[in-house]
Protein backbone atom coordinates (compact mmCIF):
# COMPACT_ATOMS: atom_id res chain seq x y z
CA UNK A 1 0.00 0.00 0.00
CA UNK A 2 1.27 3.46 -0.86
CA UNK A 3 1.85 5.77 2.07
CA UNK A 4 -0.28 8.85 2.75
CA UNK A 5 1.24 12.21 1.91
CA UNK A 6 3.51 13.48 4.68
CA UNK A 7 6.72 15.47 5.20
CA UNK A 8 8.39 14.99 8.59
CA UNK A 9 9.48 18.06 10.52
CA UNK A 10 12.87 16.65 11.56
CA UNK A 11 14.30 16.23 8.04
CA UNK A 12 16.25 18.55 5.77
CA UNK A 13 15.07 18.73 2.18
CA UNK A 14 16.58 19.19 -1.26
CA UNK A 15 14.51 20.88 -3.99
CA UNK A 16 14.89 17.76 -6.18
CA UNK A 17 12.59 16.00 -3.67
CA UNK A 18 15.24 14.23 -1.66
CA UNK A 19 15.57 14.27 2.12
CA UNK A 20 18.39 13.90 4.63
CA UNK A 21 18.24 12.88 8.29
CA UNK A 22 21.47 14.02 9.95
CA UNK A 23 22.72 11.84 12.80
CA UNK A 24 26.00 13.21 14.15
CA UNK A 25 28.59 13.07 11.36
CA UNK A 26 26.42 10.70 9.33
CA UNK A 27 23.24 11.16 7.32
CA UNK A 28 20.52 8.89 6.02
CA UNK A 29 19.14 9.83 2.57
CA UNK A 30 15.91 9.10 0.77
CA UNK A 31 13.26 10.54 -1.52
CA UNK A 32 10.15 12.42 -0.43
CA UNK A 33 6.54 11.33 -0.64
CA UNK A 34 6.13 13.70 -3.60
CA UNK A 35 8.97 12.01 -5.53
CA UNK A 36 7.67 8.46 -5.07
CA UNK A 37 4.13 9.55 -5.93
CA UNK A 38 5.29 11.25 -9.13
CA UNK A 39 7.18 8.12 -10.19
CA UNK A 40 4.55 5.56 -9.26
CA UNK A 41 5.33 2.12 -7.88
CA UNK A 42 9.09 1.63 -7.84
CA UNK A 43 10.37 -1.55 -9.46
CA UNK A 44 14.14 -1.03 -9.52
CA UNK A 45 16.77 0.62 -7.33
CA UNK A 46 20.26 1.06 -8.74
CA UNK A 47 22.31 1.98 -5.65
CA UNK A 48 25.87 3.29 -5.41
CA UNK A 49 28.54 0.91 -4.12
CA UNK A 50 29.49 1.08 -0.47
CA UNK A 51 32.62 3.18 -0.07
CA UNK A 52 31.77 5.34 -3.09
CA UNK A 53 31.83 9.11 -2.83
CA UNK A 54 28.65 11.10 -3.30
CA UNK A 55 28.56 14.83 -3.97
CA UNK A 56 25.96 17.37 -3.04
CA UNK A 57 23.55 18.05 -5.96
CA UNK A 58 24.96 15.14 -8.00
CA UNK A 59 23.34 11.80 -8.87
CA UNK A 60 24.27 8.86 -6.63
CA UNK A 61 21.94 6.27 -8.12
CA UNK A 62 18.64 5.70 -9.86
CA UNK A 63 15.16 4.50 -9.11
CA UNK A 64 12.77 3.27 -11.77
CA UNK A 65 9.05 2.72 -12.04
CA UNK A 66 7.46 0.80 -14.90
CA UNK A 67 7.33 3.95 -17.00
CA UNK A 68 10.12 6.21 -15.73
CA UNK A 69 13.70 6.46 -14.56
CA UNK A 70 14.77 9.07 -12.03
CA UNK A 71 18.21 10.11 -10.80
CA UNK A 72 18.72 10.21 -7.06
CA UNK A 73 20.22 13.57 -6.13
CA UNK A 74 22.35 13.70 -3.02
CA UNK A 75 21.48 16.56 -0.68
CA UNK A 76 24.93 16.31 0.94
CA UNK A 77 28.48 15.19 0.16
CA UNK A 78 29.94 12.12 1.79
CA UNK A 79 31.09 8.53 1.63
CA UNK A 80 28.59 5.71 1.28
CA UNK A 81 28.58 3.61 4.47
CA UNK A 82 25.54 1.49 3.77
CA UNK A 83 23.00 0.75 1.03
CA UNK A 84 19.48 -0.25 2.08
CA UNK A 85 19.38 -3.81 0.78
CA UNK A 86 15.69 -4.06 1.61
CA UNK A 87 14.94 -1.48 -1.09
CA UNK A 88 17.22 -3.25 -3.58
CA UNK A 89 15.21 -6.43 -3.01
CA UNK A 90 11.79 -4.75 -2.73
CA UNK A 91 11.85 -1.25 -4.29
CA UNK A 92 8.16 -0.71 -3.50
CA UNK A 93 9.27 -0.27 0.14
CA UNK A 94 9.95 3.36 -0.85
CA UNK A 95 6.29 3.82 -1.82
CA UNK A 96 5.11 2.20 1.40
CA UNK A 97 7.39 4.04 3.82
CA UNK A 98 9.50 6.75 2.13
CA UNK A 99 10.96 8.14 5.39
CA UNK A 100 11.33 4.89 7.33
CA UNK A 101 12.05 1.45 5.83
CA UNK A 102 12.35 3.09 2.40
CA UNK A 103 15.59 4.97 3.17
CA UNK A 104 18.19 4.60 0.41
CA UNK A 105 21.76 5.14 1.68
CA UNK A 106 23.66 6.11 4.80
CA UNK A 107 26.70 8.34 4.30
CA UNK A 108 29.53 9.80 6.39
CA UNK A 109 29.49 13.55 5.82
CA UNK A 110 32.59 15.08 4.29
CA UNK A 111 31.34 18.66 4.39
CA UNK A 112 28.84 18.99 7.26
CA UNK A 113 28.38 22.73 6.71
CA UNK A 114 26.47 21.93 3.49
CA UNK A 115 23.46 21.31 5.69
CA UNK A 116 22.98 25.06 5.92
CA UNK A 117 22.10 25.12 2.23
CA UNK A 118 19.27 22.57 2.58
CA UNK A 119 15.61 23.43 2.97
CA UNK A 120 13.56 23.32 6.13
CA UNK A 121 10.12 21.74 5.97
CA UNK A 122 8.50 25.16 5.45
CA UNK A 123 10.84 26.04 2.58
CA UNK A 124 10.33 22.65 0.96
CA UNK A 125 6.57 23.11 1.17
CA UNK A 126 7.08 26.32 -0.82
CA UNK A 127 8.86 24.26 -3.49
CA UNK A 128 5.95 21.80 -3.53
CA UNK A 129 3.42 24.62 -3.79
CA UNK A 130 5.18 25.84 -6.93
CA UNK A 131 5.68 22.37 -8.45
Amino acid at each position, binding site marked *: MAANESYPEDLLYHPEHDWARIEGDEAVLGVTWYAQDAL*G*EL*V*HYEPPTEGATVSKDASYG*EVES*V*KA*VSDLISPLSGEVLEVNQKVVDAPETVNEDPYGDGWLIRIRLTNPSERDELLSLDSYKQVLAEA
Partner: protein
Amino acid sequence: MQTLRRTPLHDRHVALGARMVPFAGWEMPVQYEGVIQEHKAVRADAGVFDVSHMGELEIEGPTARDLLQSTLSNDVDKLEVGGAQYTLLTNDDGGIVDDLIVYRLGEFHFLLVVNASNREPAYRWLKERELRGSDVRDVSDEYALLAVQGPRALERLGLEPAKPFTWAMGEVDGVEVMINRTGYTGEEGVELACMADDAVALWDAVLARGVTPVGLGARDTLRLEVCYPLHGNDIGPQWDAISSGLGWACALDTEFTGVERLRQVKAAGPAQKLVPFVMTEKAIPRQHMTISPADGGGPGTVTSGSLSPMLDIGIGMGYIPAERSAAGTELVIDVRGKPRRAEIVKKPIYKKERA
Protein backbone atom coordinates in the same frame (compact mmCIF):
# COMPACT_ATOMS: atom_id res chain seq x y z
CA MET B 1 0.84 25.10 -26.91
CA GLN B 2 -1.31 22.61 -28.73
CA THR B 3 -4.64 21.80 -27.16
CA LEU B 4 -5.01 18.14 -26.32
CA ARG B 5 -8.08 16.30 -27.49
CA ARG B 6 -10.29 14.59 -24.96
CA THR B 7 -12.33 11.42 -25.32
CA PRO B 8 -16.01 11.40 -24.28
CA LEU B 9 -14.85 9.64 -21.07
CA HIS B 10 -12.42 12.34 -19.94
CA ASP B 11 -14.51 13.41 -16.92
CA ARG B 12 -14.98 9.78 -15.89
CA HIS B 13 -11.19 9.25 -15.85
CA VAL B 14 -10.59 12.38 -13.81
CA ALA B 15 -13.34 11.40 -11.35
CA LEU B 16 -11.63 8.03 -10.86
CA GLY B 17 -8.40 9.82 -9.95
CA ALA B 18 -6.55 8.84 -13.13
CA ARG B 19 -3.20 10.40 -13.90
CA MET B 20 -3.81 12.10 -17.25
CA VAL B 21 -0.92 12.48 -19.71
CA PRO B 22 -0.51 13.71 -23.27
CA PHE B 23 -0.48 10.83 -25.76
CA ALA B 24 -0.52 11.25 -29.55
CA GLY B 25 -2.28 14.61 -29.21
CA TRP B 26 -4.79 13.30 -26.67
CA GLU B 27 -5.13 13.67 -22.95
CA MET B 28 -5.31 10.06 -21.79
CA PRO B 29 -5.25 8.13 -18.50
CA VAL B 30 -1.86 6.50 -18.02
CA GLN B 31 -2.95 4.87 -14.76
CA TYR B 32 -5.73 4.91 -12.18
CA GLU B 33 -4.41 2.98 -9.17
CA GLY B 34 -1.07 1.73 -10.48
CA VAL B 35 0.34 0.15 -13.64
CA ILE B 36 1.30 -3.16 -12.03
CA GLN B 37 -2.00 -3.64 -10.25
CA GLU B 38 -3.99 -2.81 -13.40
CA HIS B 39 -1.80 -5.09 -15.51
CA LYS B 40 -2.41 -8.02 -13.15
CA ALA B 41 -6.16 -7.31 -13.09
CA VAL B 42 -6.26 -7.87 -16.86
CA ARG B 43 -4.23 -11.09 -16.63
CA ALA B 44 -6.29 -12.45 -13.73
CA ASP B 45 -9.81 -11.14 -14.33
CA ALA B 46 -10.89 -8.30 -16.64
CA GLY B 47 -9.91 -4.73 -17.38
CA VAL B 48 -11.39 -1.96 -19.53
CA PHE B 49 -9.37 0.54 -21.55
CA ASP B 50 -10.70 3.72 -23.11
CA VAL B 51 -9.17 3.53 -26.59
CA SER B 52 -11.46 6.14 -28.11
CA HIS B 53 -8.38 8.06 -29.22
CA MET B 54 -7.82 5.44 -31.93
CA GLY B 55 -8.91 6.43 -35.42
CA GLU B 56 -11.74 4.93 -37.41
CA LEU B 57 -11.81 5.18 -41.19
CA GLU B 58 -14.65 3.92 -43.31
CA ILE B 59 -14.03 2.83 -46.89
CA GLU B 60 -17.16 2.37 -48.93
CA GLY B 61 -18.12 1.79 -52.53
CA PRO B 62 -17.96 -0.80 -55.29
CA THR B 63 -14.17 -0.44 -55.56
CA ALA B 64 -13.50 -0.32 -51.78
CA ARG B 65 -12.05 -3.83 -51.92
CA ASP B 66 -9.74 -2.84 -54.79
CA LEU B 67 -8.43 0.17 -52.89
CA LEU B 68 -7.69 -1.89 -49.80
CA GLN B 69 -6.21 -4.82 -51.67
CA SER B 70 -3.75 -2.46 -53.38
CA THR B 71 -2.76 -0.58 -50.20
CA LEU B 72 -2.97 -3.13 -47.36
CA SER B 73 -0.48 -5.97 -46.93
CA ASN B 74 -2.87 -8.76 -46.02
CA ASP B 75 -5.29 -10.42 -48.41
CA VAL B 76 -8.59 -8.56 -48.12
CA ASP B 77 -10.31 -11.28 -50.14
CA LYS B 78 -9.77 -13.67 -47.21
CA LEU B 79 -12.01 -11.38 -45.19
CA GLU B 80 -15.70 -12.22 -45.13
CA VAL B 81 -18.48 -9.93 -43.97
CA GLY B 82 -18.40 -10.30 -40.18
CA GLY B 83 -14.66 -10.86 -40.14
CA ALA B 84 -11.66 -8.83 -38.99
CA GLN B 85 -8.03 -8.94 -40.07
CA TYR B 86 -4.72 -7.59 -38.79
CA THR B 87 -2.98 -5.84 -41.66
CA LEU B 88 -0.43 -3.15 -42.55
CA LEU B 89 -0.49 0.02 -44.56
CA THR B 90 2.88 -0.16 -46.33
CA ASN B 91 5.02 2.33 -48.23
CA ASP B 92 7.06 1.72 -51.42
CA ASP B 93 9.94 0.27 -49.36
CA GLY B 94 7.66 -2.15 -47.55
CA GLY B 95 7.91 0.07 -44.46
CA ILE B 96 4.92 0.31 -42.17
CA VAL B 97 2.83 3.50 -42.38
CA ASP B 98 0.46 1.98 -39.82
CA ASP B 99 -0.66 -1.36 -38.47
CA LEU B 100 -4.39 -1.70 -38.14
CA ILE B 101 -7.39 -3.95 -38.01
CA VAL B 102 -9.80 -3.98 -40.92
CA TYR B 103 -13.39 -5.10 -40.35
CA ARG B 104 -15.56 -6.08 -43.28
CA LEU B 105 -18.93 -4.46 -42.63
CA GLY B 106 -20.42 -5.41 -46.01
CA GLU B 107 -19.29 -6.53 -49.41
CA PHE B 108 -18.51 -2.93 -50.36
CA HIS B 109 -17.98 -1.47 -46.91
CA PHE B 110 -14.96 -1.68 -44.56
CA LEU B 111 -13.96 -0.16 -41.21
CA LEU B 112 -10.29 0.45 -40.40
CA VAL B 113 -9.23 1.01 -36.80
CA VAL B 114 -5.88 2.80 -36.92
CA ASN B 115 -3.43 4.05 -34.30
CA ALA B 116 -4.25 7.45 -32.77
CA SER B 117 -0.94 8.90 -33.89
CA ASN B 118 -1.53 7.72 -37.46
CA ARG B 119 -5.12 8.79 -37.89
CA GLU B 120 -4.30 11.72 -40.19
CA PRO B 121 -1.40 10.06 -42.10
CA ALA B 122 -3.43 6.90 -42.72
CA TYR B 123 -6.46 8.91 -43.80
CA ARG B 124 -4.37 11.05 -46.19
CA TRP B 125 -2.57 8.00 -47.54
CA LEU B 126 -5.83 6.31 -48.48
CA LYS B 127 -7.60 9.49 -49.58
CA GLU B 128 -4.80 10.26 -52.05
CA ARG B 129 -5.17 6.78 -53.55
CA GLU B 130 -8.97 6.80 -53.62
CA LEU B 131 -10.39 5.11 -56.71
CA ARG B 132 -13.44 5.98 -58.71
CA GLY B 133 -16.16 4.27 -56.68
CA SER B 134 -14.44 4.15 -53.31
CA ASP B 135 -15.02 6.77 -50.66
CA VAL B 136 -12.64 7.20 -47.72
CA ARG B 137 -14.06 8.92 -44.63
CA ASP B 138 -12.56 9.71 -41.24
CA VAL B 139 -15.38 8.87 -38.82
CA SER B 140 -13.22 8.83 -35.67
CA ASP B 141 -15.17 11.53 -33.88
CA GLU B 142 -18.43 9.62 -34.23
CA TYR B 143 -17.24 6.59 -32.29
CA ALA B 144 -15.94 5.67 -28.88
CA LEU B 145 -14.00 2.44 -28.40
CA LEU B 146 -13.59 0.43 -25.22
CA ALA B 147 -11.35 -2.63 -25.01
CA VAL B 148 -12.49 -5.13 -22.38
CA GLN B 149 -9.81 -7.74 -21.92
CA GLY B 150 -9.01 -10.60 -19.59
CA PRO B 151 -9.92 -14.24 -18.87
CA ARG B 152 -13.22 -13.16 -17.25
CA ALA B 153 -14.05 -10.33 -19.69
CA LEU B 154 -16.81 -12.19 -21.54
CA GLU B 155 -18.34 -13.60 -18.37
CA ARG B 156 -18.41 -10.15 -16.77
CA LEU B 157 -20.04 -8.63 -19.85
CA GLY B 158 -22.51 -11.49 -20.18
CA LEU B 159 -21.26 -12.32 -23.68
CA GLU B 160 -20.89 -15.72 -25.27
CA PRO B 161 -17.50 -16.72 -26.67
CA ALA B 162 -17.06 -16.30 -30.42
CA LYS B 163 -14.30 -16.88 -32.94
CA PRO B 164 -11.36 -14.46 -32.67
CA PHE B 165 -11.23 -11.86 -35.44
CA THR B 166 -14.97 -11.70 -35.98
CA TRP B 167 -17.50 -9.00 -35.14
CA ALA B 168 -21.24 -8.72 -34.63
CA MET B 169 -23.71 -6.08 -33.52
CA GLY B 170 -25.09 -6.54 -30.03
CA GLU B 171 -25.80 -4.69 -26.84
CA VAL B 172 -24.37 -4.34 -23.36
CA ASP B 173 -26.92 -3.22 -20.76
CA GLY B 174 -29.01 -1.46 -23.37
CA VAL B 175 -26.17 0.24 -25.23
CA GLU B 176 -25.89 -0.76 -28.86
CA VAL B 177 -22.34 -1.86 -29.62
CA MET B 178 -20.26 -3.38 -32.35
CA ILE B 179 -18.65 -6.33 -30.55
CA ASN B 180 -15.23 -7.02 -32.00
CA ARG B 181 -13.41 -10.19 -30.99
CA THR B 182 -10.07 -8.44 -31.08
CA GLY B 183 -7.64 -6.90 -28.63
CA TYR B 184 -4.01 -6.18 -27.94
CA THR B 185 -3.23 -7.76 -24.58
CA GLY B 186 -2.85 -11.47 -25.38
CA GLU B 187 -5.98 -12.16 -23.33
CA GLU B 188 -9.43 -13.19 -24.39
CA GLY B 189 -11.77 -10.25 -24.72
CA VAL B 190 -13.58 -7.82 -26.94
CA GLU B 191 -13.30 -4.31 -28.28
CA LEU B 192 -16.63 -2.52 -28.10
CA ALA B 193 -17.35 0.32 -30.52
CA CYS B 194 -20.30 2.54 -29.73
CA MET B 195 -21.58 5.97 -30.72
CA ALA B 196 -19.62 8.70 -28.95
CA ASP B 197 -22.81 9.86 -27.20
CA ASP B 198 -23.25 6.41 -25.65
CA ALA B 199 -19.67 6.14 -24.35
CA VAL B 200 -20.38 7.23 -20.78
CA ALA B 201 -23.34 4.85 -20.44
CA LEU B 202 -21.26 1.95 -21.79
CA TRP B 203 -18.28 2.79 -19.56
CA ASP B 204 -20.51 2.97 -16.48
CA ALA B 205 -22.17 -0.33 -17.39
CA VAL B 206 -18.83 -2.09 -17.85
CA LEU B 207 -17.47 -0.80 -14.52
CA ALA B 208 -20.72 -1.76 -12.77
CA ARG B 209 -20.05 -5.30 -13.96
CA GLY B 210 -16.87 -5.38 -11.94
CA VAL B 211 -14.34 -4.69 -14.67
CA THR B 212 -11.22 -2.77 -13.55
CA PRO B 213 -10.36 0.50 -15.35
CA VAL B 214 -6.88 0.19 -16.87
CA GLY B 215 -4.68 2.97 -18.24
CA LEU B 216 -2.29 3.22 -21.15
CA GLY B 217 0.64 2.31 -18.90
CA ALA B 218 -0.60 -1.23 -18.41
CA ARG B 219 -1.80 -1.40 -22.02
CA ASP B 220 1.85 -0.96 -23.01
CA THR B 221 3.24 -3.57 -20.61
CA LEU B 222 0.50 -6.06 -21.51
CA ARG B 223 1.18 -5.86 -25.24
CA LEU B 224 4.94 -6.00 -24.69
CA GLU B 225 4.73 -9.20 -22.61
CA VAL B 226 3.07 -10.92 -25.57
CA CYS B 227 5.35 -9.21 -28.14
CA TYR B 228 2.72 -7.23 -30.00
CA PRO B 229 4.59 -4.40 -31.71
CA LEU B 230 3.77 -0.77 -31.06
CA HIS B 231 3.83 1.51 -34.11
CA GLY B 232 6.23 4.38 -33.55
CA ASN B 233 8.35 2.20 -31.24
CA ASP B 234 8.90 -1.27 -32.69
CA ILE B 235 7.57 -0.79 -36.20
CA GLY B 236 7.41 2.18 -38.53
CA PRO B 237 8.08 3.46 -42.05
CA GLN B 238 11.86 2.99 -41.61
CA TRP B 239 11.66 -0.80 -41.12
CA ASP B 240 10.22 -3.19 -43.68
CA ALA B 241 7.47 -5.52 -42.51
CA ILE B 242 9.60 -8.68 -42.90
CA SER B 243 12.41 -7.35 -40.70
CA SER B 244 9.74 -6.32 -38.21
CA GLY B 245 8.52 -9.91 -37.99
CA LEU B 246 5.18 -9.17 -39.62
CA GLY B 247 5.67 -11.25 -42.76
CA TRP B 248 2.70 -13.33 -41.62
CA ALA B 249 0.47 -10.28 -42.19
CA CYS B 250 1.81 -9.76 -45.73
CA ALA B 251 0.14 -11.71 -48.55
CA LEU B 252 3.09 -11.62 -50.95
CA ASP B 253 0.98 -13.27 -53.66
CA THR B 254 -1.20 -10.13 -53.84
CA GLU B 255 -0.24 -6.75 -55.34
CA PHE B 256 0.06 -3.93 -52.83
CA THR B 257 2.33 -0.94 -52.27
CA GLY B 258 5.86 -2.13 -51.48
CA VAL B 259 5.20 -5.80 -52.22
CA GLU B 260 8.15 -6.06 -54.64
CA ARG B 261 10.56 -4.84 -52.01
CA LEU B 262 9.08 -7.25 -49.47
CA ARG B 263 9.46 -10.16 -51.89
CA GLN B 264 13.14 -9.23 -52.29
CA VAL B 265 13.70 -9.02 -48.53
CA LYS B 266 11.95 -12.34 -48.06
CA ALA B 267 14.06 -14.01 -50.77
CA ALA B 268 17.39 -12.58 -49.60
CA GLY B 269 16.57 -12.67 -45.90
CA PRO B 270 16.37 -9.50 -43.79
CA ALA B 271 19.57 -7.83 -42.58
CA GLN B 272 18.12 -7.29 -39.11
CA LYS B 273 15.21 -8.65 -37.16
CA LEU B 274 12.95 -7.46 -34.40
CA VAL B 275 13.45 -9.88 -31.51
CA PRO B 276 12.05 -10.20 -27.99
CA PHE B 277 14.49 -10.49 -25.11
CA VAL B 278 14.57 -10.81 -21.33
CA MET B 279 17.17 -9.39 -18.98
CA THR B 280 19.32 -12.00 -17.27
CA GLU B 281 20.72 -9.31 -14.97
CA LYS B 282 18.75 -6.91 -12.83
CA ALA B 283 17.98 -3.90 -15.05
CA ILE B 284 15.12 -2.42 -17.05
CA PRO B 285 15.75 -1.86 -20.75
CA ARG B 286 14.36 1.32 -22.29
CA GLN B 287 13.65 2.53 -25.81
CA HIS B 288 16.73 3.76 -27.76
CA MET B 289 19.29 1.89 -25.64
CA THR B 290 22.06 0.17 -27.60
CA ILE B 291 21.89 -3.62 -27.70
CA SER B 292 24.66 -5.88 -29.00
CA PRO B 293 25.21 -9.62 -29.33
CA ALA B 294 27.59 -10.63 -26.50
CA ASP B 295 29.95 -12.43 -28.90
CA GLY B 296 30.30 -9.47 -31.23
CA GLY B 297 28.41 -8.24 -34.24
CA GLY B 298 26.87 -4.94 -35.10
CA PRO B 299 24.89 -3.12 -32.46
CA GLY B 300 21.14 -2.73 -32.59
CA THR B 301 18.55 -0.69 -30.77
CA VAL B 302 15.98 -1.36 -28.08
CA THR B 303 12.59 -0.30 -29.45
CA SER B 304 10.48 -1.11 -26.37
CA GLY B 305 11.48 -1.97 -22.84
CA SER B 306 9.86 -2.26 -19.46
CA LEU B 307 9.59 -4.35 -16.37
CA SER B 308 7.33 -7.34 -16.91
CA PRO B 309 4.75 -7.17 -14.12
CA MET B 310 4.06 -10.91 -14.46
CA LEU B 311 7.68 -12.12 -14.62
CA ASP B 312 9.20 -9.33 -12.49
CA ILE B 313 12.20 -8.98 -14.80
CA GLY B 314 13.22 -6.48 -17.46
CA ILE B 315 11.87 -7.34 -20.91
CA GLY B 316 11.97 -5.71 -24.31
CA MET B 317 12.14 -5.87 -28.05
CA GLY B 318 14.78 -4.55 -30.38
CA TYR B 319 16.46 -4.85 -33.75
CA ILE B 320 19.44 -7.20 -33.95
CA PRO B 321 21.56 -8.33 -36.95
CA ALA B 322 19.65 -11.28 -38.44
CA GLU B 323 22.59 -13.70 -38.15
CA ARG B 324 22.61 -13.14 -34.38
CA SER B 325 18.85 -13.18 -33.86
CA ALA B 326 18.27 -16.80 -32.79
CA ALA B 327 16.55 -17.49 -29.47
CA GLY B 328 19.15 -18.14 -26.79
CA THR B 329 21.61 -15.56 -28.16
CA GLU B 330 23.20 -13.58 -25.37
CA LEU B 331 22.95 -9.79 -25.61
CA VAL B 332 24.53 -6.87 -23.82
CA ILE B 333 22.46 -3.73 -23.29
CA ASP B 334 23.98 -0.38 -22.48
CA VAL B 335 21.88 0.77 -19.52
CA ARG B 336 23.00 4.39 -19.12
CA GLY B 337 26.66 3.41 -19.36
CA LYS B 338 26.43 0.09 -17.55
CA PRO B 339 26.55 -3.15 -19.54
CA ARG B 340 23.72 -5.50 -18.58
CA ARG B 341 23.12 -8.98 -19.94
CA ALA B 342 19.99 -10.16 -21.70
CA GLU B 343 18.95 -13.14 -23.80
CA ILE B 344 16.85 -13.44 -26.94
CA VAL B 345 13.73 -15.52 -26.30
CA LYS B 346 10.89 -16.91 -28.40
CA LYS B 347 7.60 -15.06 -28.70
CA PRO B 348 5.64 -14.51 -26.55
CA ILE B 349 7.77 -13.41 -23.60
CA TYR B 350 4.92 -14.17 -21.21
CA LYS B 351 2.90 -17.31 -21.73
CA LYS B 352 -0.18 -18.09 -19.73
CA GLU B 353 0.15 -21.21 -17.61
CA ARG B 354 -2.34 -23.78 -18.79
CA ALA B 355 -4.70 -24.79 -16.01
